C-alpha cells in the first residue's frame, strides 16, 4: 500500500477509486462516476490548468472510460499532452491517446507530427514511447508519414529501440501490407541481428510472412533450424532463460514457423528432424513452459512430412498430456490427439477412456474441445454415440452462437453418416427441438425431401414404413408443450402428406391435430399456413379416394377464422380449401394427387396450350398484343406498382426511385381528407418510402425470421426469366392452380420435397417469384417479346374496348367463377408429368421461400394476377368514364353478390377459358377470390371491385394502407361503399401490420391512383 501515494496519484484520484470501490450498488457507482465526469468536464476547459494537474485529469479520464463511460470530451487534451516535453507528461499523453483513440479517429492527424519528431528524438525512451504509440494509432495513410523514421530506427544502437522498431514494422505489415512490402527483405536481415531479442522480434513478423506464403521463405529453413539449435543448446545468454528454459518463446515461434515450412515438403521436413528430436529431448516436462514447447513440437511433427520416430515420441507425449491431472494439459492433450490421429487414426483407441473422461468433465472448455475432437473422429460406426453426446451437450447450452454451431455439426454428421433414415429423423427432431429456429430452414427442407424421396432405392415399402414412423413420431412430438416454428412446419407438412397414407389414422384425427397446432400458435402465420395446407391436402386425398369429407367443427372454426384473416395468404388458402371441398373427386385427384410431392413439374413457358385459344380470339377480331413500351400512359402504373410491391424496404435498393408519380398511398399518418390532391401526388414516393421504412421497422421485432427470406425470395424471382407476358396466362391458368397454389404456398416444402405435384404449381411457383421480376422488367422496355406472346396476351386481355367491359366484368367473373376452376386445370395439367430440370429449380426456390412463403406467396400471387395487361389496356381507352367504372366496382360492396353480369364480358377474354366448366359450385363468390383477383385486379378499378366483392381483406388493406384517397373516392362516389372499407379498417389490429403483411392487397388497393390518375382529377377537380 505504501506505493499508493508515492506514485504521483493525487488524493482526489485515490478518493475516486475508493468511493467507487465502496459503492454499494451499480446505481451508486454510476452516480459517482457521473459526478466525476461533470467535474472533469468543467476542470479541463479552465484556462491555465497546470500541466501536472492536466495529466492527473487525463489519467482519471482513462479510468472513467475503462469503467465504460464516455470520456471523449477529453480526448483533445490527451492529444495536446503528447506534445509536451516532459517525458512523464508525454508518456501519459501517449498512454491516454492509445487507449482512447483508434487508428481512424479524426484526432490522429494531430499526433502524427509529434510522433515523427519523437521518433527522431535522441532520447531512446522517447523513441520507444512513440514506437509503442505507432503500433496502435496509425492507419494505412498515416503509416506512410512515419515509415522512414521507423526504418531509420532499425539501425538504432539500443537493441530495445531496434526491437520495437521491428515490432512496429510488423504491425504496419499487418495493417497495410502494401506500405511495407519493399521492406520485407529487411526482416530477413534482422534475423541476423547480433541481439537475440531483436531477432526474436523479427520472428513474429516472419511468422506472418511465412503463413501468407511459405514457399518464398523455405530457403530460410536452415537458418531457423540453426537458430533453434543454438537456443536449445543453451548458447544464448542466461538473460533469455525463463525458469531455466532457454528462450522458450523463441523456441515456440520457430517451431510454429517450421511447421508451416515443412508442411507437405519432405526434403524441408527432413532437415528439421534432428533439431526437433533435440528439442523434445531437452524440454522439461515438469514445467509449464516446457510442456508448451513439447506441445508445439507435437504440432510441428504432425504437420510436417511425417517421421515415424518423431511421431512415436509425439504420441507418447500426447498420452502423458491426456493422463495428466492438470486440466490445461488435458486440454492440450485432446488437441494433440486430434492432430496425431490425423496421421495415425488407430492411436485414438488407446485413449478412449481418457477422452470419455474429458467428455464428462464439468469443465466446459474441455468438453467442447473433446466434442471437437469427436466430430473429427466421427465414422458411421460411432456416429450414434457421438451425436448423442453432442445433443446432450446441446441441451446444456443457452447461447445462440454455440448452439447454432453445434446444431450445424450434428446435422452435418447426421447427414453424412446416418445409419438409418429413422435415426436421421429422430436426430433431426431433437435438433429442431433444442436449437429450434437457429436451425437453417434448409435443414427442414432436406428432412422433408428425405421423407418424400425415400431411401433412394426403389423400395416403396421401406419408404412408406419410414413415413409412417415419421408420422407416428411427429404425432408424439406434438404432445410437447413448446415447439419451434420450423419443426411445426415440418410436422404439418408430413402430417398433410402422409398422415392418412397408411390408414392408421383417420382424416379427422389428423385434421384435429393440425387444427390444434394452428390454434396453439395463433401468432405464427407460417405455421398456420402449413397447417391449413396440410388440411387441404388431407381433404383432397379423402375426396379423391371417394370418401365424403365432413369437416370436424374445430376445423370449420379454423377455416372461418382464416377466411377473415388479415393475411391474404391464409385467406386464400382457406378459400381454396373451401373450393376443393366443392369439387368432384376426379378434379380433386388431378389438383392434388396422392403422394406426388416428388414428381417433376414442367413449366410450359410458352403456354403453347393456349395457342388455339389465342388464334380463335384473334380470328374473332381481338386486338393483338401490344408491348408495353408501345403503349402510352402506362409508365405510371408500372412505377407505381413497382414501388408498392417492394415489401422489403429495408434492403438496399439500387435502382433509382422514379420521378414522383401519382400512384402510392399517402403516408399512413396523414388524414386522407386533409391532403390536397396535387400534394399527394407530389409526396407520394417520399411518403410511401418512409411508410415502408416505418413498416420495415415495425415489422422487425416479430417477423424477423421472415424478412431475410423475403429478400431472398425476391432475388429468386429476379433470376428467373419469366416475363410478364406469360403472366396473363399464368393468371388465367391460375384459376386452376389456385388450389395448388395454396399447396405450394405454405407448402413450399412440396416443391422442395422434390418437384411438385402439379404442373400448374410449377408455373405458379414461377409466378410466385415472378411478380418481382415483372416489376423490374416492367420498368424497362421489352422489345424482345415474341410476337406469339404478344398475340396471346393481346387476345387474352382484349382490345381497347376492354375497359368498358371491365368494370362490369369484375363482377361478372365473380359470379361465374366458382365453377371455372376445373376446366383450365385440365388444360394445364397435361404438360406436367415430364422430366426433371424444373424440379431442382423448384426446390431451390422452395428452400429460400420456405419460410417466407406462407406469408408472402399469397400476396405475390395476388400481385401476379393483379398486374395483367388489363390495366394497360384500360388506359389505352382514356375516354372511359371513371365514374362508371367506379360504380361498377363499388356496387358489389353494397350488394354483396348480386352483381351485374354482362354476359358478353363473361364470354370474352379470360372468361372464355372457363366456359363449359362442369361444376358451377354453390360456394358463391367467396370461393372465387383468387380467380377474381387474377382477373379483376389488373385494373385498378377491377382491383377495387375485387376487393369489394370478395369482402374485406383487400378493402381493409386498402383502408389500412392509407390508400385513403381510395376511401375518399368511394366515399364520394357512394357513401355506402365507403362506409364498408372504413369499418373494416377499424377492425384490423394494426394498420401497419396488416398493411405490411398484405403486399398484394396493398397493391390492389393502391393501383387506382396509379392506373388512372385522371380519375382522381376528375373526382376532385
Amino acid at each position, binding site marked *: *500500500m505504501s*506505493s*499508493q501515494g508515492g506514485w504521483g496519484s493525487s488524493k482526489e484520484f*485515490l478518493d475516486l*477509486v475508493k468511493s467507487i470501490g465502496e459503492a454499494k450498488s451499480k446505481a451508486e457507482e454510476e452516480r459517482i462516476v457521473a459526478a466525476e465526469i461533470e467535474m472533469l468536464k468543467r476542470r479541463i476547459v479552465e484556462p491555465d490548468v497546470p*500541466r501536472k494537474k492536466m495529466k492527473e485529469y487525463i*489519467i482519471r479520464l*482513462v*479510468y472513467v472510460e*475503462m*469503467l*465504460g463511460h*464516455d470520456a471523449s470530451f477529453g480526448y483533445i487534451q490527451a492529444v*495536446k499532452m503528447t*506534445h509536451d*516535453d*516532459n*517525458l*512523464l507528461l508525454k508518456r*501519459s499523453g501517449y498512454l491516454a491517446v492509445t*487507449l482512447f483513440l483508434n*487508428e*481512424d479517429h479524426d484526432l490522429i492527424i494531430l499526433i502524427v507530427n509529434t510522433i515523427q*519528431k*519523437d521518433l527522431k*528524438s*535522441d*532520447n531512446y*525512451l*522517447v523513441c520507444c514511447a512513440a514506437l*509503442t504509440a505507432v*503500433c496502435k494509432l496509425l492507419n494505412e495513410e498515416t503509416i506512410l508519414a512515419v515509415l522512414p523514421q521507423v526504418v531509420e530506427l532499425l539501425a538504432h544502437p539500443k537493441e*530495445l529501440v531496434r526491437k*520495437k522498431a521491428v*515490432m*512496429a514494422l*510488423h504491425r504496419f505489415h499487418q495493417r497495410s501490407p502494401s506500405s511495407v512490402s519493399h521492406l520485407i527483405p529487411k526482416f530477413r536481415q534482422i534475423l541476423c541481428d547480433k541481439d537475440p*531479442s531483436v531477432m526474436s522480434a523479427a520472428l*513474429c513478423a516472419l*511468422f*506472418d510472412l511465412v503463413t501468407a506464403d511459405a514457399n518464398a521463405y523455405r530457403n530460410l529453413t536452415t537458418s531457423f533450424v540453426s537458430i533453434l539449435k543454438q537456443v536449445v543448446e543453451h548458447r544464448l545468454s542466461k538473460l533469455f532463460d*525463463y525458469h531455466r528454459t532457454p528462450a*522458450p*518463446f523463441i523456441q515456440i515461434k520457430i517451431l*510454429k514457423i517450421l511447421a508451416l515450412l515443412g508442411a507437405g515438403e519432405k526434403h524441408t521436413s527432413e532437415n528439421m528432424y534432428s533439431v526437433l528430436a533435440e528439442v523434445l529431448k531437452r524440454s522439461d516436462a515438469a514445467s*509449464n*513452459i516446457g*510442456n*508448451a514447447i513439447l*506441445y*508445439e513440437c507435437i504440432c510441428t511433427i504432425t504437420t510436417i512430412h511425417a517421421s515415424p520416430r518423431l511421431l512415436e515420441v509425439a504420441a507418447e507425449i500426447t498420452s502423458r498430456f491426456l493422463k495428466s491431472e492438470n*486440466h*490445461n494439459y488435458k486440454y*492440450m492433450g485432446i488437441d494433440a490427439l486430434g492432430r496425431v490421429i490425423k496421421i495415425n487414426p488407430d492411436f485414438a483407441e488407446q485413449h478412449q477412456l481418457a477422452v470419455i473422461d474429458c467428455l464428462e468433465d464439468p*469443465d*466446459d*472448455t*474441455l468438453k467442447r474441445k473433446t466434442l471437437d475432437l469427436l466430430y473429427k473422429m466421427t465414422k458411421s460406426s460411432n456416429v450414434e454415440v457421438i451425436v448423442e453426446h453432442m445433443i446432450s451437450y446441446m441441451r446444456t447450452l443457452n*447461447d445462440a452462437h454455440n448452439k447454432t*454451431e453445434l446444431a450445424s455439426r450434428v446435422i452435418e454428421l447426421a447427414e453424412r453418416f446416418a445409419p438409418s433414415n429413422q435415426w436421421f429423423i429422430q436426430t433431426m427432431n431433437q435438433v429442431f427441438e433444442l436449437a429450434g429456429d437457429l436451425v437453417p430452414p434448409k435443414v427442414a427442407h432436406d428432412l422433408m425431401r428425405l421423407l418424400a424421396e425415400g431411401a433412394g432405392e426403389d423400395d416403396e415399402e421401406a419408404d412408406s414404413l419410414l413415413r409412417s414412423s415419421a408420422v407416428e413420431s411427429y404425432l408424439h412430438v406434438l404432445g410437447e408443450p413448446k415447439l419451434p416454428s420450423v419443426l411445426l412446419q415440418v410436422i404439418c407438412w408430413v402430417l398433410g402428406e402422409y398422415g392418412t397414407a397408411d390408414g392408421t389414422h383417420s382424416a379427422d384425427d389428423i385434421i384435429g391435430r393440425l387444427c390444434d397446432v394452428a390454434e396453439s400458435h395463433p401468432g405464427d402465420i407460417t405455421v398456420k399456413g402449413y397447417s391449413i395446407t396440410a388440411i387441404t391436402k388431407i381433404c383432397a386425398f379423402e375426396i379423391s379416394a371417394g370418401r365424403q369429407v365432413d369437416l370436424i367443427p374445430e376445423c370449420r372454426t379454423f377455416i372461418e377464422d382464416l377466411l377473415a384473416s388479415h393475411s391474404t395468404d391464409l385467406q386464400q388458402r382457406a378459400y381454396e380449401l373451401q373450393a376443393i371441398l366443392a369439387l368432384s373427386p376426379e378434379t380433386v385427384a388431378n389438383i392434388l394427387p396422392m403422394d406426388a410431392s416428388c414428381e417433376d413439374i414442367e413449366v410450359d413457358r410458352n403456354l403453347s396450350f393456349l395457342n388455339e385459344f389465342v388464334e380463335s380470339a384473334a380470328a374473332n377480331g381481338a386486338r393483338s398484343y401490344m408491348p408495353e413500351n408501345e403503349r402510352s400512359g402506362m409508365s405510371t402504373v408500372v412505377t407505381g406498382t413497382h414501388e408498392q410491391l417492394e415489401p422489403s424496404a429495408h434492403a438496399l435498393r439500387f435502382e433509382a426511385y422514379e420521378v414522383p408519380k401519382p400512384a402510392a398511398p399517402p403516408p399512413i399518418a396523414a388524414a386522407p381528407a386533409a391532403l390536397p390532391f396535387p400534394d399527394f401526388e407530389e409526396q407520394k414516393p417520399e411518403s410511401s418510402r418512409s411508410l415502408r421504412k416505418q413498416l420495415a421497422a415495425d415489422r422487425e421485432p416479430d417477423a424477423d425470421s421472415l424478412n431475410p427470406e423475403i429478400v431472398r425470395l425476391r432475388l429468386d424471382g429476379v433470376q428467373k426469366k419469366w416475363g410478364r407476358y406469360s403472366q396473363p396466362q399464368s393468371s388465367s391458368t391460375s384459376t386452376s392452380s389456385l388450389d395448388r397454389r395454396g399447396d405450394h404456398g405454405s407448402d413450399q416444402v412440396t416443391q422442395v420435397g422434390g418437384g411438385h405435384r402439379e404442373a400448374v404449381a410449377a408455373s405458379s411457383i414461377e409466378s410466385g417469384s415472378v411478380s418481382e421480376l415483372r416489376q423490374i422488367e416492367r420498368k424497362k422496355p421489352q422489345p424482345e417479346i415474341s410476337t406469339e406472346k404478344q398475340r396471346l396476351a393481346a387476345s387474352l386481355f382484349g382490345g381497347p374496348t376492354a375497359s368498358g367491359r371491365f368494370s362490369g366484368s369484375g363482377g361478372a367473373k365473380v359470379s361465374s367463377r366458382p365453377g371455372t376452376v376445373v376446366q383450365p386445370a385440365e388444360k394445364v395439367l397435361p404438360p406436367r408429368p415430364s422430366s426433371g430440370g424444373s424440379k431442382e429449380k423448384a426446390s431451390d426456390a422452395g428452400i429460400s421461400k420456405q419460410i417466407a412463403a406462407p406469408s408472402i406467396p399469397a400476396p405475390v400471387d395476388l400481385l401476379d394476377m393483379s398486374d395483367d395487361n388489363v390495366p394497360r389496356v384500360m388506359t389505352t381507352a382514356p375516354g372511359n368514364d371513371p365514374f362508371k367504372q367506379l360504380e361498377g366496382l363499388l356496387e358489389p360492396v353494397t350488394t354483396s353478390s348480386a352483381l351485374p353480369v354482362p354476359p358478353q364480358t363473361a364470354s370474352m377474354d379470360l372468361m372464355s377459358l372457363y366456359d363449359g366448366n362442369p361444376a358451377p359450385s354453390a360456394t358463391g363468390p367467396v370461393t372465387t377470390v383468387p380467380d377474381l383477383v387474377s382477373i379483376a385486379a389488373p385494373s385498378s378499378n377491377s382491383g377495387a371491385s375485387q376487393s369489394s366483392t370478395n369482402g374485406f381483406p383487400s378493402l381493409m388493406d386498402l383502408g389500412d394502407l392509407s390508400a385513403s384517397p381510395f376511401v375518399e373516392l368511394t366515399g364520394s362516389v357512394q357513401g355506402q361503399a365507403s362506409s364498408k372499407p372504413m369499418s373494416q379498417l377499424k377492425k384490423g389490429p394494426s394498420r401497419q401490420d396488416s398493411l405490411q403483411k398484405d403486399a398484394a392487397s396493398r397493391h390492389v388497393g393502391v393501383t387506382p391512383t396509379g392506373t388512372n390518375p385522371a380519375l382522381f382529377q376528375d373526382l376532385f377537380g
Partner: protein
Amino acid sequence: MILAALVMNTQGKPRITKFYVPLGVEKQQEAIRTIYSALSQRPEDSCSFVETENIFGPDTKLVYKHFATLYFIFVIDSSESELGMLDLIQVFVETLDRCFKNVCELDIVYNFNKVHTILDEIVMGGQVVETNSAEVLKAVQDIWKLERVGDLNVPSVRGIGSYRSKS
C-alpha cells in the same frame, strides 16, 4: 497475436484493459462483461482456456489466470501458444510484484498508468516483446527515473517547446 490484455477483479470490475485490435468502446465493455460472465462460472479446477469465438471471432480463445482477487486475461488467436501465454501472465505478475512489493489489487488500481507501462514493455502491438521480468523491470525503471527528472533536456526536442505554454 494477442488481441487483448485484461485485468479484472472477481467482481467483474475492469482494472486494466488494453485492446490490440480496434474495438469500439461499447464493444470493449461488452467483451469485458461477456468474459467476466464466462470466467465467473468456471469451476475452480477447470483449464485456463476459454473459447471466445462469439466475442473476438473464430479461432480465438482467452487464457487466464486467477490470482487472489484478480483475473489476468490474455485473448489470443491461434498463432500464440496457450501454455506459453500462461507463462506470459506469470511474467507480467512477477514484474508487477517486483515493482509494487507484494502487489495487490489496490496497487494496480491506483497505479494503473504504471501497470500500462509495464504491459507495454511485455507486449507491443499484440506481439510478445520481452519475457524476462528483470529486463522489463529495468526498462520500466529507466522510464520512471527519467520521468521524475522532469523535462527532457535534449536539443532535438526543444523544437516543440512552443506547445508547452499551451498545454
